[in-house]
């Protein structure tokens, strides 16, 4: 081994605690890259493989009823590689031991063999035998949630008839990786199941023999996507087509994509923070080491070592610290990555989801980690090697202090000399003080940004379930009903208030922008649902349309501007409506008009697509029983159940996440404060020892050293909380998707908690250094030549 490398190794052993503190901060950055980067890629590649192998559709469309020969016309569109027609219906399920009705989505499968597209992968059992109308395959998570095995039975209210359904197999489908029921926002495998049954039987029940109501299209590589969808709409329009949509708007895919986008946002935002902090720490520690070894550098130069050789020596030290951080980060990343894969398996149902440690993810994270360390070193080293050997070997001139305007204030304030020393030190190295302060502040910011998610979820729940939606249940029908159905629902047992909602699938257009959504018409003066602005004021779509703020932004619409409303289900009828207001909404991107407006636009009398109801909870069982016996009802959603599953999911992850995030934030604070204190101690050891000899107590001496850090921490906390708010805002923007928006809500408790963690971590680091001051060998310190 070269002598210089031996020196390096010994330097590193001497600096082990500081090196470790830096390595840990770096490790967090690397771990997150490995963990989230790996999870993102695992998830994405598993999805792509699953989609590819099981031929997931590129375009989806629903119609009321189209004859089978329409399929041939769709297949003939240039660019269409594959098309499959099927029957799909929502039904109420009656499951033993479950009072509340569940919702099932019936999907037809060919009588012989498996579907051509959206092919479910059988995990157990087999496909229904030909002619066996009561045999079904259900999605695996539904079976698991109910403890169903092969041969178990449940009942479905299929077109008004209660039928026994026998499970002959379980399956996983690319269409339902994220299995979410209609009108729901969270997966609830007890209340929603996918049921595949033989097509002939299903078609017969719904009077769809020789016809279909669902279309899936696979595109060729060179297909003109927009043209294909335009032609499909044209073909389906006479049959009640509601407008075909691309894969990106398919609900399961959209949720999965949202998760992937979140992950890649996190990978882009979080690791750089940790890497930058560690670069700064490396710079700080190496800068100090180089200052201490100034003469040794001069000597090496005198001995004939080139600048590059000396520089590389110090850069290697940084790289060694970086390598340590990378190794620790890899370890945690691998461990955490497995954990994430398990977490994802709860929400995303793949037949296989393996967390693969991709070499490239590891390589990139290592490269980033080492580069951060080296970057921190380079600036510190460059200055040192530039000194001429004669200058480097002479002891450095005493640091020059100056008295400025502020110093006159000091005299005026009659500060103690020890406080003056703190003040001078801060003003002598303002950049270093500022950077240290920023480092501590970042720790607070990371903490706020991590904790705010829980505040945001609370806010989201409050908005969605208290302020905007107060109904207890949502009852949906198989197809729109006349308005008299509201009264019918009102007569169901336990229903106290019933309100109707009429909705129609539409395409909104403004200039070059266009979006698919559903246009909702609620009765004026609704008690159960409210449209509120972001400020919390009531907004009514009187004389126009009210849009979700995000939708308006996507369509580049301002108040008063006209938006074109297209009704694909009505043969492409279109009309212009002015935007009269924005609504705050966390889920989906809704558009709202009054029933009169919709009636005018659609050219038909107002109808009802679903009803909201408040119920007497004591009579819920009677209501559920009645609903199960009512043929027209296609689904019932309990808001309380949604809220509960939402809460459960958050609670499940909250404890673990808070601990991990606090640890991450604390690591930054410890890394920064500990290193800053150690460097201060090293730089000022003689000064402090002199004071001790002059009769200052350990406490008074510590005050000079730690007082400075205390000042920096106290300044850093509010700055950090503010930075945290900015970071949270950036995350909110980054996480924004078509499906949901996370509100920027940060409670005082979050700020207090962040301040606490940072304050505590700083105090802990200070305590370690305080012990060192106590152990300082005064005589030895005074003897050293520096």
């Amino acid at each position, binding site marked *: 081994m070269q*002598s210089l490398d*031996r*020196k390096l190794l010994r330097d590193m052993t001497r600096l082990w605690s500081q090196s470790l503190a830096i390595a840990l901060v770096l490790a967090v950055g690397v771990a997150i890259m490995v963990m989230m980067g790996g999870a993102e890629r695992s998830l994405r590649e598993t999805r792509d493989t699953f989609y590819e192998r099981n031929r997931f559709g590129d375009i989806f469309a629903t119609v009321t009823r189209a004859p089978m020969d329409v399929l041939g016309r769709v297949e003939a569109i240039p660019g269409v590689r594959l098309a499959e027609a099927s029957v799909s219906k929502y039904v109420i399920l009656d499951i033993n031991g479950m009072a509340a009705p569940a919702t099932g989505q019936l999907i037809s499968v060919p009588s012989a063999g498996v579907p051509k597209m959206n092919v479910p992968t059988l995990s157990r059992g087999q496909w229904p035998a030909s002619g066996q109308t009561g045999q079904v395959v259900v999605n695996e998570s539904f079976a698991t949630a109910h403890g169903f095995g092969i041969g178990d039975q449940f009942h479905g209210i299929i077109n008004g008839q209660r039928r026994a359904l026998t499970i002959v197999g379980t399956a996983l489908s690319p269409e339902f990786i994220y299995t979410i029921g209609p009108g729901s926002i969270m997966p609830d495998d007890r209340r929603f199941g996918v049921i595949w049954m033989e097509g002939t039987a299903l078609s017969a029940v719904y009077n769809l023999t020789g016809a279909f109501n669902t279309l899936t299209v696979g595109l060729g590589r060179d297909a003109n996507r927009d043209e294909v969808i335009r032609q499909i709409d044209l073909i389906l329009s006479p049959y009640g087509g509601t407008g075909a949509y691309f894969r990106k708007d398919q609900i399961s895919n959209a949720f999965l994509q949202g998760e992937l986008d979140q992950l890649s946002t996190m990978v882009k935002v979080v690791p750089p923070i940790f890497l930058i902090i560690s670069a700064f720490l490396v710079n700080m520690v190496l800068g100090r080491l180089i200052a201490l070894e100034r003469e040794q550098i001069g000597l090496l*130069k*005198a001995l*004939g070592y080139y*600048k590059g*050789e000396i520089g590389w020596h110090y850069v290697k030290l940084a790289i060694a610290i970086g390598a340590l951080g990378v190794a620790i980060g890899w370890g945690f990343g691998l461990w955490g990555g497995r954990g994430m894969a398990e977490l994802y398996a709860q929400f995303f149902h793949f037949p296989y989801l393996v967390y693969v440690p991709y070499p490239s993810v590891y390589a990139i994270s290592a490269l980033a980690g080492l580069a951060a360390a080296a970057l921190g070193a380079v600036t510190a080293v460059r200055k040192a090697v530039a000194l*001429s050997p004669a200058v480097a*070997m002479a002891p450095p001139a005493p640091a020059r202090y100056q008295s400025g305007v502020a110093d006159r204030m000091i005299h005026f304030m009659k500060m103690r000399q020890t406080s003056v020393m703190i003040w001078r030190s801060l003003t002598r190295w303002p950049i270093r003080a500022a950077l240290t302060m920023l480092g501590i502040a970042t720790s607070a910011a990371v903490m706020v940004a991590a904790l705010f998610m829980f505040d945001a979820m609370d806010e989201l729940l409050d908005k969605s379930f208290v302020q905007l939606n107060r109904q207890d249940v949502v009852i949906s029908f198989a197809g729109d009903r006349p308005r008299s159905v509201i009264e019918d629902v009102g007569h169901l047992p336990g229903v106290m208030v019933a309100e109707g909602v009429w909705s129609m699938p539409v395409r909104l257009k403004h200039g070059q922008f266009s979006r698919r959504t559903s246009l909702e018409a609620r009765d004026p003066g609704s008690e159960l649902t409210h449209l509120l602005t972001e400020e919390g004021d009531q907004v009514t779509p009187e004389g126009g349309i009210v849009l979700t703020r995000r939708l308006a932004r996507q369509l580049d619409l301002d108040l008063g501007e006209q938006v074109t409303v297209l009704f694909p289900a009505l043969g492409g009828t279109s009309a212009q409506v002015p935007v009269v207001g924005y609504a705050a909404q966390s889920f989906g991107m809704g558009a709202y008009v009054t029933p009169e407006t919709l009636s005018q636009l659609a050219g038909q009398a107002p109808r009802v697509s679903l009803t909201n109801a408040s119920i007497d909870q004591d009579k819920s069982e009677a209501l559920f029983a009645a609903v199960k016996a009512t043929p027209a009802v296609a689904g019932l959603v309990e808001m309380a159940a949604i809220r509960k599953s939402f809460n459960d999911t958050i609670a499940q992850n909250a404890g673990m996440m808070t601990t991990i995030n606090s640890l991450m934030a604390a690591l930054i604070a410890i890394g920064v404060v500990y290193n800053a204190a150690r460097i201060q101690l090293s730089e000022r050891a003689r000064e402090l020892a002199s004071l001790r000899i002059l009769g200052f107590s350990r406490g008074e001496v510590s005050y000079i050293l730690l007082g400075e850090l205390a000042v920096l921490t106290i300044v850093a906390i509010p700055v950090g909380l503010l930075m945290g708010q900015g970071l949270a805002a950036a995350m909110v923007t980054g996480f924004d998707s078509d499906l949901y928006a996370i509100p920027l809500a940060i409670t005082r408790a979050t700020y207090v908690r962040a301040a606490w963690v940072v304050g505590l971590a700083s105090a802990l680091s200070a305590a370690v250094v305080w012990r060192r001051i106590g152990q300082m060998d005064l005589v030895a310190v005074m003897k050293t030549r520096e």
Partner: protein
Amino acid sequence: MAHEMTNSTPSGLVETPPARVFHTEDITKIYRTGAVEVQALRGVNVELIAGEFTVLLGASGSGKSTLLNILGGLDHASGGRAWFRDQELTVMSDRGLTRYRRDHVGFVFQFYNLVPSLTARENVALVTEIASEPMPPEEALERVGLGHRMDHFPAEMSGGEQQRVAIARAIAKRPEVLLCDEPTGALDSKTGVQVLEALEKINAELGTSTIVITHNAGIQAMAHRVIRFADGNIADVTVNDTRIAPSEIEW
């Protein structure tokens, strides 16, 4: 035990004029620290002979260290020219000077300047690893009488021992010149003598041109040539007809 030495150069057998190892033309050096300007050298002209043991004497601030730094390629002159043999030092780049130091010069400093985290052997190896035809670190340490202390860290050695490690480190590359800035400045007389004996031995055995800065006037008696500095210039040069051994120096 005194022994007399005649003042013949090691190349004395040759009749041609003695070879110059260094010579300068009007070397000046001005230091600027803030508003203060110090003229350290005021047009120095000097010739140093290859193989000689030269002593530079003078009060502190007289310019002797500055000259040594320039000759050793540690510092740039403000004006004038300086040569090592026929290579002009004053036109060399930083990289050229590094190359020159690496290949030709050994340094010994007043405060030893050992790397504290390396043992005696490793401190010497620091140089032998980058030199073209070095002697083994062990041999260099044997030459200064430290064969038994090779694996000790600087903190475990006395000042005299540390300085001898520094000498071993300087000679291990077999330099043509050995430049010593106050090598005994921090030592007591007994260890100082040991260090001087080591230097004298190297000069005699290896023929290394040696320049020693000192403000201890007694040391001049062991030199071939003594150059006195005063006020940034050479006051006078004397050539000793007879030299005495380091052990006889009056400290």
